């Protein structure tokens, strides 16, 4: 029994490694490290929203998105992010804040 569980654990580890590895590789290819300002230029076009697979990586951050929904810059504060975009001449498509997992649900002003 102990041997069987041990084998299961090994397979579980291999499965997890395979499951996570492509995501990390894809993020590295996209240059979507938090706090990074990637000097990729977007162009005016269709509005894009943060890609679903990037949401967890940028929770609680303001993000600037390119034309494909990838994050090209991020910051704690909206003003700081816009100033940085303006300063480096980085053209992004859209800016939004990725909500923290524990943010209260907004249902109106009070």
């Amino acid at each position: 029994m102990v041997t069987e569980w041990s084998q299961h654990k090994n397979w579980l580890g291999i499965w997890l490694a395979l499951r996570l590895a492509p995501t990390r590789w894809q993020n590295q290819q996209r240059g979507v490290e938090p706090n990074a300002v990637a000097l990729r230029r977007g162009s005016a076009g269709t509005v894009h929203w943060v890609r679903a697979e990037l949401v967890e990586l940028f929770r609680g951050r303001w993000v600037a998105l390119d034309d494909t929904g990838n994050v090209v810059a991020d910051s704690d504060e909206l003003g700081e992010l816009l100033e940085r975009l303006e300063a480096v001449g980085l053209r992004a498509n859209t800016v939004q804040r990725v909500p923290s997992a524990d943010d209260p649900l907004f249902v109106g002003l009070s």
Partner: protein
Amino acid sequence: MSDAWVYHHQDLGEPAHIDGSPIVRPVVPLIVAEELPAVLGVLDSGSPISVASADLFAFLGVDIGADDPLYGIPLSVGGGFERTPVFRVRLRLSSPGDHTHGVSWSLDLGARSRWRLPFAVLLGQRGWFDSFPTRIDATTSTVELPLGSASDGEL
């Protein structure tokens, strides 16, 4: 050619409903300055006013610390109440799918500090619905603005 501008509701990454379905918001893209990306405005017909992150106002040409507001309104911020200054500003609504085409309009906008919402602007009755006749259809998750309907600008 469509006789309306149609925007689809968007999932902004908020934690999902208890049944697992995503929370989607009626969102429109807004341009505050030519060289900057669009910020997101959420339409809220239940809000009597329009407010935005105070961080936006410098880019709209308003110095919150020095310029006189039109008036102030009390709003809760961070668990307490704070008088929120309201300024007259000009925004541009981007047409669906094209930031280079849009319509500008003037509105009174409250500058709210410590803003933590996933969008930068909340567009309410005064500031949006009094300028744009708007159809929000939750069955199709769309916002529809009939062409020629804007009271200010040329939609």
